[in-house]
């Protein structure tokens, strides 16, 4: 069992938890992920490592409540424990030799982008962060990004905070203003990563995206997380989760991510009903 040491609501649908997991904290690097199970009958879900503290032996996860499992996870409190927590999995982000990078984060994807931005900043890379949210109340990690970035472009879809527009608008503005990047790192919804990649392709800038495929074991056994990269089948769990953004078949990945939507909606509703009954 893996104890929840801290829990914090970052916004109404996004929660941050600090988990006691010394073995994983000792090894984790930005870009890697963990697989967890909330309880005995729980499914295995992958979550990217949002932060880690080797001294304290803790791993931080940040998740959006999107379905039954994340709803159950969110129902756990400080002092409770998770059934299983395994990692770190996947190949760490490659940051060596990068002088100037644009880190693009969308929604809860910012939680995954942040440790990469932090690592880049710590190694002396110039970091321009472009972070986007639907609206002001959903903004997360703004201070954290500001602390590790040389420039931050804050975007909201409805203009309720920062600039109104999409992350691609802000990135294009930076590029048109003459900013030159060794690499763009884009992490967020699949559709966002698709359009960031289309944009950077125009400017011929190497782009890395992090794929959050559906997984079961996460260790290279089941093949559930496969995607097409440059016409070849790759496995997000052992070949990724980061891939060349210009080579990923996003349309296929988007469809594959919807594979269990019906089941998930039903399960989510079921869990919500259970919680409502408890409240009564």
């Amino acid at each position, binding site marked *: 069992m893996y104890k929840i040491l801290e829990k914090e609501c970052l916004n109404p649908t996004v929660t941050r938890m600090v988990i006691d997991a010394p073995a994983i904290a000792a*090894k984790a690097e930005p870009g890697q992920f963990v697989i967890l199970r909330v309880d005995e009958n729980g499914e295995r879900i992958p979550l990217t490592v949002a932060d880690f503290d080797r001294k304290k032996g803790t791993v931080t996860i940040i998740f959006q409540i999107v379905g039954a499992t994340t709803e159950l996870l969110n129902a756990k409190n400080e002092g409770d424990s998770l*059934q299983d927590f395994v990692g770190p999995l996947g190949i760490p982000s490659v940051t060596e030799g990068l002088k100037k990078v644009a880190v693009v984060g969308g929604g809860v994807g910012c939680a995954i982008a942040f440790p990469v931005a932090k690592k880049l900043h710590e190694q002396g890379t110039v970091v321009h962060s472009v972070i986007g949210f639907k609206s002001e109340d959903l903004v997360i990690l703004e201070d954290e990004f500001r602390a590790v970035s040389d420039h931050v472009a804050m975007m909201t879809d409805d203009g309720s905070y920062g600039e109104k527009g999409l992350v691609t608008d802000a990135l294009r503005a930076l590029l048109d203003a003459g900013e030159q990047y060794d690499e763009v790192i884009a992490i967020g919804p699949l559709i966002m990563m698709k359009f960031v990649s289309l944009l950077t392709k125009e400017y011929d800038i190497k782009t890395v995206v992090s794929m959050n495929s559906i997984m079961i074991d996460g260790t290279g056994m089941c093949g559930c997380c496969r995607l097409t990269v440059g016409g070849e089948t790759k496995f997000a769990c052992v070949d990724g989760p980061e891939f060349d953004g210009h080579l990923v078949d996003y349309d296929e990945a988007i469809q594959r991510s919807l594979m269990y939507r019906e089941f*998930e909606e039903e399960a989510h509703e079921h869990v919500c009903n259970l919680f409502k009954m408890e409240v009564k």
Partner: protein
Amino acid sequence: MANMSLKKNEMPSQDPMVRNRNFQEVALGYTEEQAIDEATRCLNCKHHPCVAGCPVEIDIPDFIMKTAEGKFEEAYQIICQDSSLPAVCGRVCPQESQCEAVCVRGIKGEPVGIGRLERFVADWHIANAQDEPVRCPENGRKVAIIGSGPAGLTCAGSLARMGYAVTVFEALHTAGGVLVYGIPEFRLPKDIVQKEIDALIELGVEVRTNMVIGRSITVDELLNEHGYEAVFIGSGAGLPMFMKIPGENLKGVYSANEYLTRVNLMKAYLPESATPIKKSKKVAVVGGGNVAMDAARCAKRLGAEEVYIIYRRSEEELPAREEEVHHAMEEGIIFKLLNNPVRILGDDKLNVTGIECLEMALGEPDESGRRRPVPVEGSEWTLDLDTVIMAIGTSPNPLIKATTEGLDTEKWGGIIAEDPSGQTSRAHVYAGGDAVTGAATVILAMGAGKCAARAIDEELSGMKSCAEKNNINI
């Protein structure tokens, strides 16, 4: 006087049309009377060819003689001298191509039902006997085992019985490897696997789940920082193979590994499980091995109306055990033999809608000795489906190779290990099972685990004489 009946005592089983809707065990096991009757069919012949036919060399005539006398616990103890997983092997070993294939009684009539007797004896022990674990005097030396499947468990059990402090590292949340995630409940109930693992824990073996070697800890760290003097890699089968035909990433195409993991490990067939699985109506499983049969039979049990096996050779070449093929046919699985898929068809939402196949004919034998399937020109046909399961094999997991410098592997990824010791290109590192051979059987993996345990003991004790095969019980 031996029982000269030409036929084996039949195995009581669930009715095919009942069992293809539930996940309970298919075969119900012999009664005591049936077991004694079957045991008396053994002639206890001088040459006992069955022993050499067994990859772990169980003293088969001896255990059968005790069974015939009704001394079931004694029979069990005889099996245990050579096998650490009797209840598992009695269920999933391909006896028809091993011990039973060379049984003298098989020359005229059916061989003795050795597998069925092994299963009976093991089940009798579980139901009736109290295990008093015999702990060997500890020798204070640590060995790490990577993977808790048949190879790892056997190696762990053998070493623990010799007094080693053994830790088994398992990547998943439950120990058992393929016995838990791969082989379905109806063929191998999971509580039986758990009992075998519990027995190892009683013996002093430490099992650590949620540990991915290569990520959580590397092989070098096990040796250099964690005090293990030897490491055995039994990491099993790895990434699923696909045919590289169009449509394999459509929604509704599963690897057998994924499908079986969802069903067996994650228990997707139970309402309380949070793991989803597609509610399929028409399913095709591509492949002809035991894994293909397991996937097809799971799909049927999950409620599919039509389940097909598509295999490019003929019935004779099916690699699955005869019994599994027979069970699948009884349960209504439809066999489309001598057919090979050329592409999987889908709709605009990328859902599977069908599969296009090409008929095959058998040509000259290929390097495997089996007749090579050759496409019949212009024989394309289409089958409407909503689910396709690819069961055409796996390639070894790349994690350990990628993180262990100097560990040599074959081009296809299998770890290179000496036969039979399992010694790899790295000192103190041994390997066995599917990670070395590619997809094979439970019993062969167990054999490899047992041999590696012997080799590890020889290396660590530095006294080869004490590891003479006949002087130790492993």
